[in-house]
Structure formats: structure tokens, C-alpha cells
């Protein structure tokens, strides 16, 4: 490990950004390249000599697949040859350890584990992954084994669910309605329920119309088992939240150039800032059709100010130039129409990205990566992506 502990070289704006932060969170909906962005940033951070962990909460475990470790186990830190580690969240394992550690007795732990809601909630409760991620992040940050942790959040349709969802779990398991009002009655069973008159009972009876009484009873018993374990849960969630709000944390909103994704990115940054988290900038993937390794030295400049968007196309002049160069007319036609396709797409993207940036205002650090001709899904591809990260605006 010593070999890669060197002084930061800050070879690039992305490298400099990664040296200034110790926690980076990539937010965004599914399909925008969040996992690739996380891995590419981890590669850059490792090159800067930082002890780097790429932490993925994605239940589909794409990060391991992306770095060619598809057989890797969740919950196990895996060193990657580029000098960083990756860790996939092991939801079941982490949850079990959390419950075991904080249960007052072995008996309580066993009772919780044998309730059918134990596994059910882990797999199905919206926000459970996020909640467990917060617990794991707390553990990682407390251990201080890394200079920087880069977090790949789950691909939900709503980007901020990573920050909001953990509370849903706490609100469920630490639920006064169940603990104070329901539990005494639930112990008594159905008969009493039918004749009870209190408001809470009334509500319960209505709920039972949907679900049947047994299921409610079981859920309430499950929640009741957590009695007394919650002080710690809330404290840790609070510590992580403070850490996420610190200036040493960077939040990137990852987007692709799809119109809906760009609009969503704008909304996400607004909500993120409103909620008091340090929005750092956008990370826009597949920003330009002009692939970096296609970009000839000859004068396109930074692709960020993509030249394609500014091209004035004149079909007749194009045909004349082609003829002068001895290009067959049929080929010239296809070349022109393909060029026009690229220009159209890039114009739309440039306009929408400019609108996004002006709406967001100054003072942020945005990055882009180009579109590659081939699809990025392995380590060499991610290295190319890492090298192609560019500041925007």
C-alpha cells in the first residue's frame, strides 16, 4: 500500500477537487452513468495518491460488474489494481450485525430475526437499502481507513431518496403509534379488537380490512421488539447527516444529455441545496458525440464548448467541397446527412446544458465526460473515462 501513498499531484481539475474533499456522493436517476462516474472518480483519486474507497449501494451491484469483478461478494472490500478499493453494500449482513450489536439480549435478537418481517422489510421496504447504507457509511467513516470515500447511490427514479429514505425506516421502527397504543391490545388478540372503542383501535380495525388482522399483528409485534434500540440508530443517522452537510463533502448530480434527465438534474440540485447539502456541481455523462479519442489535435478546442453545435451547414457548399476533393456524390450526401444529425443533437444538448448552468448560477464545479463509441463496462474503459473527465463552464 505504501507505494501509492505519495504527495497529491493534482494533475487535473477533477484531481484537485478530489484532493479537497473526503466524501463524494454521486446522485442521479438510473441509467445516467452514476456507477461509471463513481468508478472513474475513484481512479482519479487513487492517481492523486489518496486512499480511496468506491462504495456502491446499488442493489444490482453494477460497480463490481463495471470493474470486471462480477463474481465479487457484497460486504467484502475488494482492492482494484488501480489502487482503490470497492465495497458493495451487503444489506442483509449489515442489518443483521446492526441488530445483533444493539439488541439488549440474545433473546431479543432471535425474536426479531424469526419474525417474517425481518427479511421481508430488508428486501421490500422502500428506503431500507438507503438506511442500511447510512449505517455502513457511519462505520466506514468512523474507521478512518480512507482519505476519500466516493458513494454511488441506488438508481431510484427520485435522486434525493438516498438522503430522505433512511428516515422512513426509523419512523417505522421507532413508531409511537405501535409502541404506545397498539401493543397492549395486540397482545390480547382479535376478540378485544372487535369491541374496542379507542381511536387507535378504530384505525387498526379499518387497516385490518385491507390486510387481515394477523399481518398487522405480526408487524406490530415486530416493531415492538425494537423497543429501546433506537437511541443509537437516530444518533448514527444524525452523525452521518452532519458529515454529509460538511464542507469537506462533495455532492455531484449525475445526468446524461437526455432532456428529461437534464431537467431532473436541475430540480435535484435545487432540492439538495434547499435541504442544506453542499451541492458541488453536475457531472454530465456522454456530453459530446465527438469522442475524445476521435478528437484530432487539429483545432476543435475543448469539446466542452463543443464545436459541432456551432457548425453552419450549407448542403450545396458541402457538396462542392466534396466534389473538389474527389468524394463520390453518394458518399458526400451520406456524410452530410450524418454530420447534420450530429449537429442537431449537439445543438439541443448545448442549449439545454447552458440553460441548466445559468439556472443553477455561478460558483459550482461541473464536469463532463464524452460519449465513447464503445460502451464502457470494464476497467480499461473506465480508465479512458477517468482521463476524459473535463471541467465545464
Amino acid at each position, binding site marked *: 500500500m505504501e507505494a501509492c501513498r505519495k504527495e497529491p499531484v493534482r494533475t487535473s481539475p477533477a484531481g484537485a477537487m478530489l484532493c479537497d474533499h473526503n466524501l463524494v456522493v454521486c446522485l442521479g436517476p438510473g441509467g*445516467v452513468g452514476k456507477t461509471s462516474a463513481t468508478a472513474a472518480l475513484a481512479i482519479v483519486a487513487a492517481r492523486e495518491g489518496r486512499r480511496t474507497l468506491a462504495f456502491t449501494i446499488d442493489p444490482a451491484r453494477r460497480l463490481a460488474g463495471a470493474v470486471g469483478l462480477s463474481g465479487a461478494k457484497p460486504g467484502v472490500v475488494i482492492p482494484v489494481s488501480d489502487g482503490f478499493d470497492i465495497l458493495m453494500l451487503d444489506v442483509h449482513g449489515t442489518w443483521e450485525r446492526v441488530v445483533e450489536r444493539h439488541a439488549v439480549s440474545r433473546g431479543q435478537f432471535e425474536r426479531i430475526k424469526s419474525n417474517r418481517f425481518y427479511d421481508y422489510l430488508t428486501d421490500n421496504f422502500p428506503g431500507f437499502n438507503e438506511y442500511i447504507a447510512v449505517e455502513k457509511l457511519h462505520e466506514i467513516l468512523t474507521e478512518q481507513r480512507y482519505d476519500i470515500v466516493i458513494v454511488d447511490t441506488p438508481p431510484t427514479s427520485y435522486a434525493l431518496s438516498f438522503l430522505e429514505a433512511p428516515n422512513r425506516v426509523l419512523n417505522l421502527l421507532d413508531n409511537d403509534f405501535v409502541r404506545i397504543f397498539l401493543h397492549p391490545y395486540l397482545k390480547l388478540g382479535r376478540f378485544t379488537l372487535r369491541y374496542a372503542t379507542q381511536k387507535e383501535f378504530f384505525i387498526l380495525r379499518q387497516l385490518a380490512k385491507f390486510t387481515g388482522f394477523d399481518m*398487522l399483528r405480526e408487524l406490530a409485534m415486530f416493531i415492538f421488539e425494537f423497543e429501546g434500540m433506537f437511541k443509537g440508530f437516530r444518533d448514527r443517522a444524525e452523525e452521518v447527516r452532519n458529515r454529509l452537510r460538511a464542507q469537506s463533502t462533495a455532492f455531484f448530480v449525475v445526468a446524461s444529455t437526455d432532456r428529461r434527465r437534464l431537467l431532473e438534474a436541475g430540480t435535484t440540485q435545487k432540492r439538495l441545496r434547499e435541504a442544506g447539502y453542499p451541492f458541488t456541481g453536475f457531472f454530465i455523462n456522454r456530453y459530446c458525440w465527438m*469522442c475524445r479519442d476521435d478528437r484530432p489535435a487539429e483545432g476543435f478546442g475543448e469539446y466542452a464548448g463543443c464545436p459541432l453545435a456551432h457548425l453552419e451547414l450549407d448542403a450545396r457548399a*458541402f457538396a462542392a467541397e*466534396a466534389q473538389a476533393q474527389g468524394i463520390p456524390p453518394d458518399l458526400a450526401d451520406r456524410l452530410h446527412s450524418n454530420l447534420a444529425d*450530429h449537429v442537431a443533437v449537439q*445543438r*439541443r444538448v448545448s442549449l439545454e446544458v447552458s440553460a441548466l448552468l445559468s439556472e443553477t448560477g455561478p460558483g459550482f464545479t461541473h464536469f463532463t465526460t464524452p460519449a465513447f463509441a464503445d460502451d464502457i463496462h470494464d476497467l480499461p474503459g473506465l480508465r479512458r473515462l477517468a482521463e476524459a473527465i473535463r471541467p465545464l463552464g
Partner: protein
Amino acid sequence: MPEPDSVKAKPHDLLTRRFIAVTGKGGTGKSAVSAAIAFAAATLGRRVLVASIQRYEKTTGFLGAGAPAGEVFEVQNNVFAVNITPKAALREYGLMILRFERLYRRVFEDTLVRYLMEALPSLEELVMIGKAWYHTQERQETGAWRYDTVVLDMQSTGHALSMLSLPATITKAAPPGPLRSKAKEILAAVTDPKRASLCVVTTPEETPVNEAAEICERNAAEAGMPPGFLFVNRVIEPEFGPSELDLGAELPPRALLRTAFVCASFRERVARSQSGHLARAQRDIPLPAVILPEVFSEEFGTAELAALSKIITEHCHGSV
């Protein structure tokens, strides 16, 4: 695991199905494909509803920008859309059972109770798919179906599969009760081999194709929906031969013509990279594949949607 070259599902006439679920990896264009299927069916004179599943109130569907969750609105002649969110669906279902608004509010709008509701075995998922199913059962005053086809634009892979498997899971595992009988009814509808269809959208890229294969496997094992079509979206066909591209090598660097060659060569390399994934999708995924080309326009609007609809009609309608 299906064998490679496994037997493909026999193509059916998609556009006359009553319940079509559309899923695939995020970012592959599920919503655009759902809309295109709807427009294709509407062209045949069918009344079509696109029901778009949105976990959060804060997001809206492709056709449903700005519409309040749960409300059906007409997009254009014979095409309707609705955004389905857990909250709105639960409310509708709750009102149906409890019958009174006040009663509903008292029970469901108690914050603590809401958390409980979220934890009950997939109640939210069930009421969302239940709402989509409910629209297939609605009738007009004439007695005809209100919607001949409901296209369910689902969330990405994981969530969609949990939702589609839910009626089967509940029917098998839950104690008898209103939840189970509802689940049983929905199960019969979504697995109906004559009326339902599960379509998968992918792009010719590594992960989306893997996820598409996973959906088919898990559908066969867990949900049991009749397999429909695989839509391979955003396909770029090869357009330039290598000898043609060589003609650009000697051109002066700044010439427009040179730029055109750079774009052409980029396009060819994208097409080449895609062709491997496309072949894999066609070989490994047990659904008949329909290729939808990349749309290169400044806007994805009505004309672009109509073009996709036309392809879908050609490949998924009639004696296919």
C-alpha cells in the same frame, strides 16, 4: 438460466392485447416505447391508456408532465395517460374500501399510520398495479371497455419485477383476506396468456442487455407474465464502409469535410460496438426482437414518436 439460442417466445399480436407491461434498465427509453406502443394501438382505433408508475410524487411520466397523480387525461385522440403514485393509488383504493372520505382521512392521513402502511407487505406496489388493472376493467356507459389497452410504463428492472411478481407472491403466501383475494384477481389478469404481455426495452449495450435477460428469467420464474417483445432501442445501423472512411484521411484538418469524416467514423464505431450487443440480445433473450433506430433530431416530438409507432405496428401487429 435459459440456454443460448433458447426457444423464442412465439410472437403475438401485441396491439390487440389488453394489458401490456413495459420494463427495462433505466435510461433505455421505456417511456418513449410505451408511448409509441400506445400510439400504434390507437391508430388501429383502440382506446389506450398509458399508466406510468412513479414512486415519488415529485417525478412525472413522459406523457404526463404536470398532471396530478391518479388523474386520467387525454393526450390526443384515443390516447390517455395517468401517473400512478403510491400515495394517490392507496388513497383511491382506500376510498373504495372505506367508502367515506372522512373515514379515509382519519385512518390514512395519520402520519404514524402511513409509516405502517408503507411496511405492510407491498401494499403500495399492490395498489399501484391494482390501479392499472382496475383501468382494464372499467367500462363506458355503452358497456364497451373504457380502455381497450392499458400500457403500464414501469420502473426499472428490480422494482418492476417485484411489482409484477407480487400478485403471485401474495396469492401463495399471504393469509386469506381482502389483500389475497385482490391479488388473486390481478394475478389472473396479468398472467392471462391471451390478453397480457410483458415487453422489455434495452439499448444495444452491455448492462441493459444483461438486465433484459435477467427480467425474462425472473419473469418466467416469479411473475409468469406472457412474454411479449424485446425492443432494442436507439440502434445505429452501419452506414459507411471502411474504404469510404479512408477517403477522409488526407483531407486538411480544419475542413468541414474532415469534420464530416470524423463524425462518420465515430458513427461507424458506435454501430460496430452496438452490433455485438445487438447480436447477443437477439441470441440470448427469449423474446422476438424489434429494432428501433436512434433518433437524431433536436426534439423527440410527435413525428419521432409516430416513426417508432410505425415500426412497432409493422413488427408486432397482425399475423406476426
